[in-house]
């Protein structure tokens, strides 16, 4: 019994300490943001690494998700004779929910794991130590541009996911199922609100981008500097970031759309 309590206590202390460390780490990294303004090239490089290089997987997934949404939506709507609303169903699902969430999950798997592995290996090969000895703060030079790059790239990826998804839905609905093209677009235009739907979706994806990248860079920076340590950290990034995205999505959805 005592042993169990001891383990429980040690576990809780361990988690609390790590959470604390993660927040202190974030504070130091944010301190490096103002210094990035005159050297925005560093951030651009990271937007390319985590954003542009994730484009293919995000676009392809978006296309298929949109196509499936149209198929499934059609089957339900056709019973009510409301297939003209298919455009609204597809676009609202994508813009409000699936765009930000699925893109963030893909982002965690594609870019988050890469960030953790990169920073973890930089630590293991003493590159971060070498920077410190060259009087360059690695939190400002290495971590800050990656965090900001992730925050900027994520909403763009989510937007592309939604846009490609809507196109996929259009091909299936109009091309395959024979839904009226004019109705598909005009209903969408009438029902999707710029602030209520699109802005809230963008806010979600900014929050997800921030959290996923924060977890990824922290896990890399905090990794045990061995091959095993880096591999564990990479796994943790994907698991923790995905769970965080899903949990936060519920909270954000409740806050944004809970009172409708």
């Amino acid at each position: 019994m005592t042993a169990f309590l001891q383990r429980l206590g040690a576990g809780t202390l361990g988690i609390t300490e790590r959470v604390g460390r993660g927040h202190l780490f974030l504070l130091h990294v944010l301190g490096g943001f103002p210094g990035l303004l005159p050297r925005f090239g560093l951030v651009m490089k990271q937007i390319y690494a985590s954003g542009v290089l994730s484009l293919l997987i995000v676009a392809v997934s978006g296309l298929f998700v949109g196509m499936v949404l149209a198929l499934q939506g059609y089957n339900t709507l056709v019973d009510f004779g409301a297939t003209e609303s298919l455009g609204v169903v597809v676009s609202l699902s994508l813009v409000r929910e699936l765009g930000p969430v699925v893109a963030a999950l893909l982002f965690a798997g594609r870019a988050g794991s890469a960030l953790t592995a990169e920073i973890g290996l930089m630590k293991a090969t003493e590159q971060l130590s070498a920077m410190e000895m060259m009087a360059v703060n690695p939190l400002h030079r290495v971590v800050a541009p990656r965090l900001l790059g992730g925050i900027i790239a994520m909403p763009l990826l989510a937007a592309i996911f939604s846009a490609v998804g809507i196109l996929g839905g259009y091909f299936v609905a109009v091309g395959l199922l024979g839904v009226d093209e004019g109705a598909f677009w005009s209903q969408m235009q009438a029902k999707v609100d710029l602030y209520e739907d699109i802005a809230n979706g963008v806010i979600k994806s900014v929050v997800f981008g921030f959290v996923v990248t924060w977890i990824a860079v922290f896990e890399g920076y905090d990794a045990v500097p061995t091959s095993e340590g880096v591999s564990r950290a990479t796994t943790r990034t994907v698991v923790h970031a995905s769970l965080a995205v899903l949990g936060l999505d519920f909270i954000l959805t409740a806050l944004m759309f809970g009172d409708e």
Partner: protein
Amino acid sequence: MPEAWVRIRGLHYARGEQVIFDGIDMDIPRGRLTAIMGPSGTGKTTLLRLIGGQLRPDAGSVEVAGQNVSALRSKALYRLRQRMGMLFQNGALLTDLSVFENVAFPLREHTRLPERMIRDLVLMKLHAVGLRGARELMPAQLSGGMARRVALARAIALDPEMVMFDEPFTGQDPISLGVLVSLLRRLTDALGLTSLMVSHDVQESLSIADYVYVISEGQVVEHGTPAALRRSTSPWVQQFLQGQSDGPVPFHYPAPDYRADLLAEAP
């Protein structure tokens, strides 16, 4: 002897249960080449990290250029580090940058020199280590020895007052070894550099060092000029200098009796 650039007094440092340094006093003179020697695992690299302020001593003090390193706030520590260079054991080159950009890195971070001047400076440093022609290569394309030479060029890029070399000779072929040994000596003399070298290559170290510290088991076992060290009567120092397997220093990590260990039941 010139004044000390690094002054270490009563240094204690432990990693968990393991005591690495148990009250060490050391003076690294300005403008000289000092070698710190000792068997593997005696904490030579740890000592360099303590001097560079990456680790904090448990007790005692490390003074660099008259400033107590462990008491410095991070801004002041970073300012002090601009006056030191360090060559890491494996080079620690930034793998996403080319050889040229690696050497240019400290210049770009700390100066606002025009691109032309940066190029000239980088090529001069690379020429000194014989790798001007390798400027376009990426670190992954370099051998271990070449990577260490690029790292050396990077360590002296800002013309620091002191450079710390962590095992500079390991993995060098005989030709680059010879060049590197004389380069270290010439750098020290020509730039008035305070050089601190950690090594267990006895002959190379003794041939160029002005002063030598030998450490083992957390203590300074012997120190003096290479000539004085060769004359040392300490059996420990003689065993180390001549690389004998038999002597006061055990080759084996502490272990139970060999025979009893082999005959014991497997767990």
